[in-house]
């Protein structure tokens, strides 16, 4: 299975979604490195310059507004790209000739399924850590060590969100067998229906039933955002997502086991 993980990582890191994510990472780090100047006095942030222009507001408010906006935008953009990428991995597996060839070797369908999933997850994991790691280092040096380690916690949180969405995308891929449909379903779920279903006191029984089918996406997104801002959220949301993730994985593997492989 490790061979499949390695190969999937190598194949996916050069896919457009990963390259766009890397460009985004570079742009974000570049903007912070060259566009933001922090002025400290006695370890207190007193002002922030954006591209040489001092911002005429309280430094703390500017800092929080910038961090909030930037983290929300970056999180959304990265998850958008990675959900798009995740939608293709398992649909491609059903149609790619290399799947049939690989399965002539001593690897099971479950091993191949998991290898693809873990390989694709490592792409996200690496890029999230590169991004937040680079930003953390940049801010660390700019603020003479005043930055909190929340960025790295945010990267972990995003990686966990990605793992949940990957397992859901893999199950959908096995059922729908169409990458465009999987991408649309997952994106709609992540960005709109998921947060809508977040409330547990829906007036409609149907909505309450539907909300139990999906992990607490809105809570997970909130944890990622607040972690990045240095306020670690309630990671129990991820624990509550574990049963969903396991069910998606097992169901996806079962369907893959039963599926005819075109490749």
């Amino acid at each position, binding site marked *: 299975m490790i*061979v499949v993980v390695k190969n999937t990582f190598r194949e996916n890191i050069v896919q457009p979604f990963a390259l766009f994510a890397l460009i985004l990472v570079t742009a974000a780090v570049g903007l912070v490195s060259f566009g933001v100047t922090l002025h400290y006095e006695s370890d207190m942030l007193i002002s922030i310059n954006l591209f040489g222009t001092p911002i005429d507001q309280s430094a703390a408010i500017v800092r929080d507004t910038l961090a909030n906006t930037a983290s929300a935008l970056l999180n959304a953009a990265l998850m958008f790209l990675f959900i798009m990428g995740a939608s293709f991995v398992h649909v491609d597996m059903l149609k790619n*000739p290399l799947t049939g*060839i690989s*399965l002539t*070797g*001593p690897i099971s369908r479950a091993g191949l399924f998991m290898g693809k999933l873990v390989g694709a997850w490592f792409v996200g994991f690496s890029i999230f850590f590169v991004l937040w790691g680079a930003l953390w280092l940049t801010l660390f040096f700019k603020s003479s060590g005043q930055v909190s380690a929340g960025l790295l916690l945010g990267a972990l949180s995003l990686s966990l969100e990605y793992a949940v969405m990957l397992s859901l995308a893999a199950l959908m891929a096995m059922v729908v067998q169409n990458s465009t449909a999987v991408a649309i379903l997952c994106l709609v779920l992540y960005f709109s229906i998921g947060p809508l279903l977040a409330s547990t006191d829906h007036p409609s029984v149907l909505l309450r039933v539907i909300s139990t089918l999906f992990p607490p996406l809105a809570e997970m997104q909130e944890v990622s955002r607040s972690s990045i801002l240095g306020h670690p959220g309630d990671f129990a949301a991820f624990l509550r997502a574990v049963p969903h993730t396991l069910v998606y994985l097992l169901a996806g593997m079962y369907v893959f086991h039963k599926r005819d492989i075109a490749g």
Partner: protein
Amino acid sequence: MAAVVEVHGLLKTYRSGVRGRPVEALKNISFSVDEGEIVAILGLNGAGKSTLAKILLDLVRPSGGEAMLFGSSVHRQDWKGRVGYLPELFSAPPSATPRRLLRYLGEIHGMSGSSLNRAIDSQLESLGLTEVADRRISTLSKGTVQRVGLAQALLHTPKLLLLDEPTEGLDPAGQRMIRRLLMALSASGVTILLNSHLLSEVELLAKRVAILHRGMLAALGTQAELLPRNQRFSIEISQTPPESGWQEIGSTGIWKKEVSGTDTLQRLLTNLESSGITPSTVKPLHSSLEDVFVEHISQLEHRQ
């Protein structure tokens, strides 16, 4: 001799969607292939050849009947690691190189270190791929990619080869190279089941031929059994013949001979091979496998 491939009453019905009309891809197919044999499955596009190969590899689940490899059901997966497979329309990630692709598939088969490196170099060399080994697959011609496909199928020295249209996209020289390679593998005990719609290729390679039409086995037998006994063939060579009985065509340096029967043809080809001569043309005269193919298909259509 032990049967390497056995299928009994194999059925496969595809359904497209919940309300889709069922399509019978295979209807009660039974045959076996012995160790070291080359058997060709001949059929038009959509005859069920690829479905049959995929059932043998447990990639497609049969609707009925049983498929066995090396004496046990394909579902038991005891055959894993002993089969080389070249799918129809072989393709690989465009950014990969032949060497990297072979390394990945070798590692899937549990190979590693210097033995894997040696196996990769050996396959690259025997299929004439050494020069393009480190070039991206997206820059290679269709025929070269097909040879990469064959290299991966042979990498782990399988005992059984399932080849779906192996010479697709290859030029005549490439086709001849593959034929020689497959004959050498067969002589060393490798069993080969190949799907093809190229009658000329099947005539030169396969000991037995199965004609598949619309999922039904229309005919199965050796070429000698299927072809009329007095089948005549014309052979042309562009070197001085090693024996008498050849006629030069004008003063072109091309020599021609006609023989009767597939046994005589096989003997003559073996003699030429041992003299280091490769025929430039071998073609059946009048009745041929093509006639047999057409006849069996029309008989089947008539019965239906």
